[in-house]
């Protein structure tokens, strides 16, 4: 399923400057994505998963600073590109959709106007050509009655339809990579299933590489072949989705799996994770999960994170797995 290596994030460190201090949102994050993968970045609030997505999409906010690291896309370090070069990748090779589709669209313009703008910008089409292509895109995302949608304003569409339109807009420039940051969190379960289905088939039909950011293990299991688990700004575990979820290595992943109420198993006691996230303005040395981990030792708190490889495909940042 996977072609060669497409994307390689190495030692990425991103800090946010806020009025309350400097938040070290990502610390030495590395991961690899192969062409055709559907990668899931799993994490809860404060994990840094959204920051990672924004960094890859070259869309970090103004108060974010990339302190170190590189993002190699097809061998080119995106972070070192001058703005004129970056234009070729941002929104074109690498595209992104967000949790709230309403923020993607300007409420003053119709969906058609938005799509034709994007198409004409990237491909220099005439208005007629762009409209035709726009209608095709809407059909591709399984929206019924494309001509009606083209003339509709964002507020006239339901959440599910708007998110599909956002996907259409993101795919208009024919990107190679689509980053989806919690695309279904605001949608109902039935609509969610439809959207995830759509993303999966688009990935196959368009030879797309999908990076799905979510907190929902179930979604990861349904859609993604590879999973990266993040906690407090670092990667704690990585591997094939099935392995990571059914046989978690890192204590955090294990706890996370046990904390999910599952509809089809019998009721047991849900486990939770006591304690709270460390303050990312002053992240601890060593493993950030140490204070909440029942296996933690003093080594965990002092030694810098090292990744142990388990088998060919799995990686985990935990002293339990040797050096």
């Amino acid at each position, binding site marked *: 399923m996977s072609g060669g290596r497409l994307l390689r994030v190495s030692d990425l460190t991103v800090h*946010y*400057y*806020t*009025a*309350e*201090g*400097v938040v070290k949102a990502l610390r030495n994050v590395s991961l690899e994505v192969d062409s055709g993968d559907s990668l899931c970045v799993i994490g809860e609030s404060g994990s840094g998963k959204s920051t990672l997505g924004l960094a890859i999409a070259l869309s970090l*906010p*103004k*108060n974010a*600073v990339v302190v170190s690291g590189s993002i190699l896309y097809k061998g080119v370090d995106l972070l070192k590109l001058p703005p004129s070069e970056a234009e070729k990748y941002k929104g074109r090779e690498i595209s992104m959709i967000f949790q709230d589709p309403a923020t993607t669209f300007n409420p003053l313009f119709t969906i058609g106007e938005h799509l034709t703008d994007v198409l004409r910008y990237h491909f220099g089409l005439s208005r007629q050509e762009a409209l035709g292509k726009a209608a095709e895109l809407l059909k591709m995302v399984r929206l019924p009655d494309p001509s009606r949608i083209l003339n509709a304003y964002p507020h006239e569409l339901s959440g599910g339809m708007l998110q599909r339109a956002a996907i259409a807009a993101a795919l208009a420039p024919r990107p190679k990579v689509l980053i989806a940051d919690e695309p279904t969190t605001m949608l109902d379960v039935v609509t969610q299933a439809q959207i995830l289905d759509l993303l999966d088939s688009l990935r196959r039909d368009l030879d797309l590489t999908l990076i799905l950011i979510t907190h929902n293990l179930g979604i990861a299991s349904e859609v993604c072949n590879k999973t990266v688990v993040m906690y407090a700004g670092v990667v704690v575990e990585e591997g094939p989705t099935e392995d990571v979820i059914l046989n978690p290595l890192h204590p955090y992943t294990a706890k996370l799996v046990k904390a999910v109420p599952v509809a089809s198993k019998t009721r047991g006691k849900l486990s939770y994770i006591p304690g709270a996230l460390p303050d990312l303005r002053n992240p601890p040395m060593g493993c950030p999960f140490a204070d909440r981990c029942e296996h933690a030792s003093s080594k965990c708190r002092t030694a810098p994170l090292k990744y142990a490889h388990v088998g060919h495909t799995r990686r985990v940042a935990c002293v339990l797995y040797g050096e």
Partner: protein
Amino acid sequence: MAELGLYLDLIRRNPVYLAGLVIVSSFVVLGLIAPYILTRPEDAWGLAYSIDKRLMPPSLEHPFGTDEYGRDVFNRVLLGARFSLVIGVGVVALSLAIGVPIGLVAGYMGGRVGTALMRITDMFLAFPPLLLAVALAATLGRGLLNTIVALSLSWWPWYSRLVYLQVSSVKNMPYVDAARVVGLDEARIMFKHVLPNSLTPVITQATLDVGSAILEASALSFLGVGVPPPIPEWGLLVSSGWHLVSRAWWISFFPGLAIVITVLGFNLLGDAVKELMDPRLRNILSMRRV
């Protein structure tokens, strides 16, 4: 206290804002202590005449010169700061006292009562504010209190509207529902939960409006419908020297300068505060610290 640090960052970014802070603080301090530091109180309060000292240009002894009654202009301008402060704060306070309750009730009750109250507010807002103030002041007659009242009557609708907008959205917050579920009666919900959460933009606006109130009061006094002589209100001082402006420019010039600087100071402070409130800017400001 993080605010102060951020304010310093803001100033570093745009030094003009420092001027705003300095001017307004100096003005407030002067306004408070003016009556006690006058070197020639009889001149300032307009109780004495010195024919032989008439129309003297600025000198070491009289830094702002003297007026047509021989009174030291510097002392008069200094005392004028006190009056400006009183008027500025008085107008804002009275406007809040009228406007906030109206906006609160209108916003909270909504429906016909709310609409009615807001229509009345709109009526007042329809008048050009200065014109309305002049008309009211002329009707009430000259006087310090009358000036404050006239200005407040033209000012309150702005606060009313601001509060109305805030309250309209705050009343739909879940914690208001929660207060109902807990058993609080509507009146207490209005005062305990809705009002405190609706006041922030109003208070900010009001603090900065002091400058605008001072400007409008001087306009009224200049036109002769505000404060009566011999009160050394700045607008009045400007108008009293107007017919002499070619022969003794200093009589109008220095009080006019005082008005301009004070109002400018408030405007700069206001801009600084508004920038400070913008969350995105706050974050970018903090980047400068490194």
